Structure formats: structure tokens, C-alpha cells
């Protein structure tokens, strides 16, 4: 089958900033990203939601580009921009016509060097973030389900189990001193990677990186609080009330094996077998055949983009005429079947073709009108977590060499009740009675 070879060049500046360039002249557009190796997992205790609030503060002004200027300069160059906070990274990215490359690099350098924000900016963005939480979580049916509901049930280490969007009391408690301390600790060149993708020459990109970033002083190596979880030996269950939705829901999460191991690759194909769209065993059984569920989806989210404990999660909205235990029993039957029989040779071949096809799409996938977001994200995570951006071209091999035996073994080793957590989200109005 046709392979994809992406041209990648990388270097590290004296201050520790990593620079990765993937040239491609298909369109006169460049995507520029800066990833910092800090996400909501390791935000300070008592400051839940702070990593995300801080992300908003990064758009509030820097020494030479006061509030609104960064946004104005990107938009008026013909580009788009955004940022997002993840478990273990926070990213800032923009796609612009390639004649704005230096301007974008200058803006990112300015806020890496000297963020300049005040109390008014913080108050303003705290209000904005609260409306973000309301529109995405508090005022939406199944808002935050299950990404905010499952961690507190599944994990014991605060790093993995707290409210990542933030309790409003914690958001209110955050002050400018927190902003400055967080910035000084984590937003340093030696904790970041700068990425340039698209219409540029590598030598041009490296020269600009040196010119604009080399004089940003390195910081102390950021502390890395180990987010490891104690061994889980019992099924964990929790309940959350659903305020608006009409259907009972549940989410089941299994701990995923260590990143970049054979088991991890096997788990990824197992995920494809279970959650791969309408051909996936779970959708086929619960939605199409038994017709217990109305919606079912899931998987290992952002499989390359995390650096700590994570889960493979199945999200189910089921018909109210079935109890939660009945729906769960239907789910368990599928799990038992794959533990007994694994996947057939033919099925494994299908899974690999689809995995490869999905991987290509992931590399090309955009985000909010931003081309090459997916490739940028993988390059960044492989650089920050593995020190190996070239993995983009080779990581596929591990998945394509998984055997039937490895899948069978993974199903029996990892899809165990004592390795899972379940959250039931029950509609308040519909009066679903039975208890978990």
C-alpha cells in the first residue's frame, strides 16, 4: 500500500527551545505552533482549571504587543489563530499566508519572552472562561460527559482526577501572582517546541527561529510531578445527575497500557475493533443488533497526545426502557466475546487498513479552518514526550505488525472489571429508578 513520507527537519537552540519544520508547498500557507509541555494534569493544587485560564491569558498581551494586537495582527495578515489546553501540553497556533511567517514568529516570541497582563485582563478572562464552561458543560445536556465525569471516579492521584475546566471557586481564587509564577515555571523555551509547517524553506525557518528566539533566556528545568496512579484492583463506580438530557447514559473507561509498547499498539487495534464506527463490535451489537443504545462512541482519545495515565472510554446513551445494568450487561457480553475469541485474520487485516487510512487523515486533519493541525500536534507530542519528531513517519509500523495473539492477550489483560471505572449519568427528570 502507498506510504506517506513527511519531510521533517529539527534542531534545538542553545536555550533549549526545540524547533521542528515540515516544509510542503501545496498551498501558500504556513501553520506555526508553539507547544508548552504543561497541561491541566500538572496545574497547581487549589487552582483547578488554571492551565486553561492561563492559556486565555496568553492572548491578553505581551511586552511589545498589547492586548488585542496579537489577534489583530494575525487576522489582518489573513490568518486564523487559537490555543487549547490538553492533559500534558498547551498549544498556541496560527495558520497564515506564508508572507506573514516572520510576523507570526515574532508575536509568539514576544509572548514567550515577556507576557504582560494585568488584573483587568485576568478579571475579563475569568468571566469569559466561566461562560465557556457554561456553554460547554453546565448549560448543555451531557456537558462534560464523560471527559470531566470519569477522571474523579477512575483515578486516585489528584493530577489525574481533578476538575480540569476548574471549580469556579478556584478560578475566582487565581490571582496575578499565580499567573506570573506559572509562566516563570513552565512557559520557558526549554519546555517548549516551535513548529513551522507548510510553505517555507527549512533554512529560512531555522534562521528566523534563531534570530527571534535565541535571546530568550532558558528557565530552570520545570518540575515534573509524577502523575503515576497506584495499581487499580477493583471496579470503580460513580454517578452524576443529568440536568437536561432525556436518556440515561454511562461511560466505561479501561486503563490504557504504557505508551509506545507492544501492548499499547495491540490496545489501539482492539479499540478500532470495538469502537471503529458502525463496523465496530460495540456499535454493531448495542445499537444495530440489540438496539439497547441510541448513541455509542468512544476510544482512546488523542492516542499520541498524552503523557500520563489515560483510559479507553466507551460512551453510551441508552433507551430508557433498559436499566443501566441491562445496558452494561450487553456491553460486557461484547467484551467477553472478544476476550474469548479475539479477532479473526480477516478482521485484523480490515482493522489495519482502516487504522492506516485514519492515520493519514489524522495528519491532514484541520481544526477550526486551520490546515495541518493534526500533523502539527503529532510532531509536537513526539518531540516533547519522545524527543523524536521523525516518529510521525515510523510510528505506524508498530500498529501494522500487531498479531491476533497480541490482541487476544491485550483484551484479557486490560479489559478487566478491576481495571475499569464506570460513571452513570442519570436524567433527573426522567425518573430512572434503579441504583448502580
Amino acid at each position, binding site marked *: *500500500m*502507498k506510504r*506517506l513520507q513527511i519531510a521533517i527537519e529539527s534542531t534545538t537552540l542553545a536555550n533549549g527551545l526545540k524547533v521542528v519544520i515540515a516544509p510542503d508547498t*501545496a*498551498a*501558500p*500557507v504556513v501553520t506555526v505552533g508553539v507547544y508548552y509541555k504543561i497541561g491541566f494534569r500538572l496545574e497547581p493544587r487549589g487552582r483547578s482549571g488554571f492551565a486553561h485560564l492561563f492559556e486565555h491569558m496568553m492572548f491578553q498581551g505581551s511586552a*511589545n*504587543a*498589547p492586548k*488585542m*494586537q496579537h489577534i*489583530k*495582527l494575525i*487576522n489582518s*495578515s*489573513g*490568518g*486564523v489563530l487559537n490555543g487549547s489546553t490538553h492533559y500534558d501540553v498547551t498549544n498556541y497556533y496560527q*495558520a497564515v*499566508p506564508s508572507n*506573514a*511567517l*516572520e*510576523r507570526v514568529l*515574532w*508575536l509568539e516570541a514576544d509572548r514567550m519572552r515577556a507576557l504582560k497582563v494585568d488584573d483587568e485582563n485576568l*478579571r*475579563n478572562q*475569568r468571566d*469569559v472562561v466561566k*461562560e*465557556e464552561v457554561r*456553554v460547554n458543560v*453546565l*448549560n*448543555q*445536556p451531557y456537558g462534560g460527559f464523560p471527559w470531566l465525569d470519569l477522571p474523579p471516579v477512575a483515578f486516585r492521584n489528584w493530577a489525574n482526577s481533578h476538575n480540569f475546566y476548574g471549580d469556579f471557586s478556584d478560578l475566582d481564587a487565581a490571582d496575578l501572582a499565580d499567573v506570573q509564577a506559572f509562566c516563570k515555571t513552565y512557559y520557558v523555551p526549554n519546555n517548549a517546541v516551535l513548529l513551522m509547517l507548510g510553505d517555507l524553506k527549512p533554512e529560512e525557518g531555522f534562521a528566523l527561529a534563531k534570530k527571534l528566539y535565541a535571546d530568550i533566556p532558558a528557565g530552570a528545568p520545570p518540575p515534573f510531578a509524577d502523575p503515576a496512579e497506584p495499581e487499580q484492583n477493583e471496579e470503580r463506580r460513580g454517578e452524576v445527575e443529568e440536568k*437536561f*438530557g*432525556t436518556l440515561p447514559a454511562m461511560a466505561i473507561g479501561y486503563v490504557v497500557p504504557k505508551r509506545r509498547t507492544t501492548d499499547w499498539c495491540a490496545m489501539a487495534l482492539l479499540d478500532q475493533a470495538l469502537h471503529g*464506527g458502525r*463496523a465496530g463490535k460495540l456499535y454493531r451489537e448495542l*445499537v*444495530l443488533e440489540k*438496539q439497547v443504545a*441510541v448513541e455509542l462512541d468512544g476510544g482512546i482519545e488523542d492516542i499520541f497526545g498524552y503523557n500520563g495515565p489515560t483510559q479507553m472510554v466507551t460512551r453510551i446513551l441508552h433507551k430508557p426502557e433498559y436499566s443501566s445494568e441491562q445496558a452494561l450487561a450487553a456491553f460486557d457480553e461484547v467484551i467477553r466475546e472478544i476476550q474469548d475469541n479475539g479477532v479473526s485474520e480477516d478482521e485484523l487485516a*480490515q482493522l489495519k*487498513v*482502516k487504522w492506516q*487510512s*485514519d492515520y*493519514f*487523515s489524522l495528519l*491532514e486533519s*484541520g481544526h477550526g*479552518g*486551520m*490546515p*495541518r493541525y493534526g500533523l502539527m500536534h503529532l510532531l509536537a507530542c513526539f518531540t516533547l514526550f519522545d524527543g523524536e519528531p521523525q516518529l510521525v513517519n515510523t510510528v505506524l509500523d508498530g500498529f501494522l505488525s500487531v498479531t491476533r495473539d497480541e490482541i487476544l492477550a491485550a483484551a484479557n489483560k486490560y479489559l478487566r472489571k478491576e481495571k475499569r471505572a464506570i460513571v452513570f449519568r442519570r436524567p433527573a427528570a426522567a425518573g430512572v429508578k434503579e441504583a448502580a
Partner: protein
Amino acid sequence: MATRAVEVNNAVPALAPERQVTWPKRQRARLSNGLEVILVESHTIPKFHGELFFRSGNAAAIDRGTGLAEMTATVVRTGTAKRASRQIEEDLRRIGADLSSSAGADTSAISFAGLSDFAEPLLGMVDELARQAAFPEAEFERERRQKLEEVKLERTQPGFLAGERLRKVLFGAHPYAQVSPSEEQVAAYKRDDLLGVYRDFYTPENALLLLVGDFQPDAMLKAAEKVFGAWQGKKPETKPSAAPAKPRGRRVYLVHLPGAVQTQILAGCHAITRKHPDWVKLGLTNSLYGGAFNSRLVMNIREDKGYTYSPRSGVNAFRQHGYFSVSAAVRNDVVAASLTEIFYEMDKLRSVPVPESELADAQNYLSGIFSMGLATQNGLLSQIAVVALNELPEDYLETYRQKVRALTPGDLLETARKYLDSANMQIVIVGDRVQIESQAALFGELEVFDAQGKKLS
């Protein structure tokens, strides 16, 4: 505050000379059976993306049932004369393909993407679904019951409730007023109705096949002729609907959602289709008003006042009509304050010419983002679909940027006066009436509905 002047620092690097934007060649063809095909090369990944459009959607099926084209599209993928549902899904996976079928107001479509190595089998599947869908009774029944749960569920989403009410208010008796079926309407769907829609809409003369990706166009066209060539069928007859009356005067429609901790605002007025000569002007006016991060509305109610996370305005075009709308999900205690700013920014654009520098910024923005689509197969596909489905001029993509750059402050003032029709905006707010009714009533005569659409007062 609106546009607070921002001094641009001298240190900001200037833009390098603009690089040329070259749109790829579109190869157009008509197969022997009348099927129109457009092919475009894009070698970003070893895959291709395609869409088989039918120029009839939910609006064209409205007399037979609300949402019937959508239901038909849903059941299309559940079985053919040759393959049962399970086989279809496995065969798609076998060739690494994704496929979905859906219908909007004006079109029905089968959308697909797959590996270039398996182009022909994927086209074969699309042909089979378009031509030999079997509508198995049991599959239809399951999908109908699924749909019943879905239509209940969507009535709990503030965004859905706002959009649905606005469309009703703007389009009245026109089919565009119907966003989604009621439970009763879904319960009344018959398999025969779906078969009728399928027979009439899914024909080669009514279709447009778009293919974008990593292939040689000549070889791909040959494959398309081989696969689709034997398919026959006429264009369906179309019955024009009477133009909807423009609502006069500001009115407020409150959809009561007990316990809501935020209020969804959505206001709109009639605008234009994409074919209209003012389309580019309105696009630029919109991007200045609330269509970009850097726009006046976002800077005002988000970055200055912190009322909302997600304010946005947009121009929404159907084939026959269009509307302009502005939305924001705001804190309950600032509903009136937000509406005041929404109208302030609209009225300002209607009364004060836009400064030249702000106009230039917006022109750069719009022409810049227009080219982003070039970078991915999907982006190209959607740009090309817009041109083809709306029957825009052949050189639309090539000339868009210069049309944007030719506009003047006077053009924008005129456009804002014409289409940002602040005196006749219809205002929908979705939230807890106890907290927001008195604020809402300040902006016009008020009607209150529940989430099921029943009028409360």
C-alpha cells in the same frame, strides 16, 4: 468601546511580498447517463475525498413529510440489493473508507473518503447505495426509533432550540422554516415514503459527483464512467415555494428552559443567496461585525466586557433565500446589556463609514482565509462544492480575492444598511424565563414558548 485604537509597535515585522495563490484545475465532465462530474487533484495524502450530491433535500420533500429526505439518507446506507448492513460496514472498513449519508435543506449527499489504492471499490459502494438501496424493513424501523429518541434529545439543547425558533420566525410557511421533525412526524414516517423520495431524488440527472485527491483525473474519470455509467434516471420536477414574507419590526421570542444557567441569544433577519451580487460585500461586512476573532462584536462583548465566550455572526445561504444572524451564549444577568451592544455595533456599521485601515485589515483577513482550503483535500472539496452547487461563475475561486479587495467604506455602509436590518431583527433567547423575561421584553413585543414549541404567553 468597539474598536479601541491599537498602536502597532514599530518592531512588528512587515509582511513579505504576497505569494501567488494558484487554484488547481477543475476537470469537468458529464458521463453518458447525464451525471455531472468534477475532478481535482490534490496529493497531500494517499487518499481521496468525494461527495455525491443530489440537488433535492428536505425542502423538496416537505409535502411528503418534514425531515423525510434526511430519514431517507439515513436508511440508504443500511442495505442494498447485494449487501446487508453488516456487510456494507465491513466492506468499507476493508478498504479503509469512511462514508456518511445525510440531507440538508437543499441537497441530499453521500460523502466518502478512502485510500487511493481502493478508489474503484469505494466508488462501487457509492453507486450501489445511490442505485440499489433496499430499505430493509427492520433497518428502517430501527432508524425510525433511533430518530424518535434523537428528536426528543435535541429539544434539550439551547443551540438547537434557538436555531429552530429563528427559522420558524424568519421563514413562516416556507419549507426552510422546518429544521427538524416532531415526534409525531417521525412516528408517521412510512417505508414507502422513503422509497418515493429515493426514487425521485437519487438520479444521475439530479446528481453531481465531486472527487478530490491523490489520483490521475483521466484514470479516475474512466473508473467513474465504468462504475456509474449504467445508472439511469431523470431530474425530479421541482415545485417552487412562495417567498417568505419579511418579518417587520423587532420581536422577541423567548424559549423557556427551566434551570438554564446561561442564555443563548440568536437574532436574525432575511439576507441573500450566494448567487446574489452583494454576497462578497455582505461577507466582508459580516467579518467586520462579528465574523472574525478580531471583529467589533467579539472585541466588545468578549474581550472588553466578558459577557460571553462565543459571540459570532454569520451569513447563512440556502439555494432560494438566506439570512444574517448573530449569536452569543451570555451570562443570565447581562442579556439586555449584550443585546444593547449587539445592536450598537450593528447600528454603528449602518451609520458611520468604516475607517480605511480597519477595512484593509478585514480585506486581508477574508482573502487570506479563503486560500486555506487549498491545503487539504477536504478543504478543496468544500470550496469546489460551494461553487458547483450554487452555480457560481467558473472563475469564482480565482477572482474572489480581487472582488474583496475592490470594496470601499461606502460599499460597506450601503451593505450594512441593506442587510444588517437592525430595526427588523427577530430576537430569539433561550433560557430560564424567570431570570431573563424582563430583560428580553425591553427589546420588542415578547412571545414565550416552551421547549416543545408550545406557546406559553
